[in-house]
């Protein structure tokens, strides 16, 4: 098989033996794939700047009958300086990478997801992402995967009469549920402003200012949707919480 050149984002680097790494990449045309990078731990020339979150040009080669491809070379085209500009930016970098890594199926090309992640990583050069951008990333990613939560009609009865009292967000049922369909025991409360906040975030609209409570309820709703799909907590969120606690203790 011949090697092919592709744009790629590094999603994971695992040491393998003394000299090699197994690298998980996201590419526009091949989707998520893992490859062995022979000698990557000792020869840095062929793998310049290959770290977590690095964006660059890769040469990959399929190995007949093998799940693991071969990563022949990688050259970062954008430095990681931005993503490491501060701890919060690094945490966001980790979060975006972890979401892509854990949610995307292997070998299913999704150029839109690649572009979404590349743009978000580039935005980290200016520091941590605004929360609205994080929510937009999460909702868009879920959308690409066909798991977008319903926000504009009740996931239970389909009614568009929303924002009544007792409205909730129920990840298990697929999004917002009206007061008739939801029960206090199911999902999380989703006040009208929080629902409007999520609609704005999904569309990337920055105009409206939202109350902190609405922003937090919106965040918790999206995280519950992610959690429902992943079935386990995200390490990067644990990291963000730990850094937050350490800062408070300072």
């Amino acid at each position: 098989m011949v090697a092919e050149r592709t744009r790629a984002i590094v999603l994971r680097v695992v040491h393998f033996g003394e000299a090699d790494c197994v690298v998980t990449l996201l590419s526009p045309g091949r989707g998520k794939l893992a490859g062995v990078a022979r000698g990557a731990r000792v020869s840095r020339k062929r793998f310049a700047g290959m770290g977590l979150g690095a964006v660059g040009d890769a040469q990959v080669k399929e190995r007949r009958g093998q799940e693991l491809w071969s990563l022949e070379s990688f050259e970062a085209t954008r430095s990681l300086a931005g993503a490491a500009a501060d701890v919060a930016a690094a945490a966001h970098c980790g979060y975006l990478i972890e979401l892509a890594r854990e949610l995307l199926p292997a070998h299913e090309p999704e150029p839109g997801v690649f572009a979404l992640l590349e743009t978000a990583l580039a935005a980290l050069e200016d520091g941590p992402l605004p929360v609205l951008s994080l929510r937009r990333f999460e909702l868009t990613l879920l959308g690409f995967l066909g798991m977008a939560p319903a926000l504009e009609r009740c996931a239970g009865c389909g009614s568009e009469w929303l924002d009544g009292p007792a409205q909730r967000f129920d990840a298990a049922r697929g999004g917002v549920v009206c007061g008739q369909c939801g029960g206090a025991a199911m999902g999380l409360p989703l006040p009208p402003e929080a629902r409007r906040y999520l609609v704005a975030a999904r569309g990337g609209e920055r105009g409206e200012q939202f109350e902190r409570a609405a922003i937090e309820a919106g965040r918790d709703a999206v995280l519950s949707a992610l959690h429902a799909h992943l079935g386990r907590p995200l390490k990067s969120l644990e990291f963000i919480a730990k850094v937050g606690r350490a800062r408070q203790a300072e």
Partner: protein
Amino acid sequence: MGTGADPITRLIHELGKLPGIGERTATRLAFHVMRAPESLAQGLAQALLDVKAKVRLCSSCMNLTEDDPCALCADARRDPGLLCVVATPADLLAVDRGGAFRGRYHVLHGVLSPLEGIGPDDLRIGDLVRRLRDAEAASGGTAQPIREVILALSPNVEGEATALYLARLLRPLGPRVTRIASGVPIGGELEYVDQVTIARALEARREV
């Protein structure tokens, strides 16, 4: 796997828990031990037990040591005013091998890692802060005897984030905080960098 499994299977299983050792290698090693003289097994078993029983962390620099304080901390010829912070004992060895650095060390035992969920409290950062505070208190609280903290961390996202976090935390305690120059290739690991490069990177260190 309980202790009920046969000894060979148990040995393969235990060896397979080591990093970089898959089932095939574990099997090969286990059969090698089987064929080798009794003395090999005894030496190996004793060395394994000793490493757990005798090696601990130096209470000052957190490096692995048999004696507390360790040989590096006890060496009076080393400048106590210069402190080099590294992620792992292996990185400490890499920096010290070159002989270009004659100060003291502090081992973090990892770096901040968003993807492993490793936060500040999982590292020896609190011990580092305490070390600087104690040094200042011992001097009568007038000046920070540790003049400079050199962060020798790999230049990848985790290393960068850790360096910035430490710089912010340590600078108010008085020392100059610098970072080794990135003569080390981006994403590189200190452990694998040659002595000349490390010496040059130390030489060309910059304020964080």
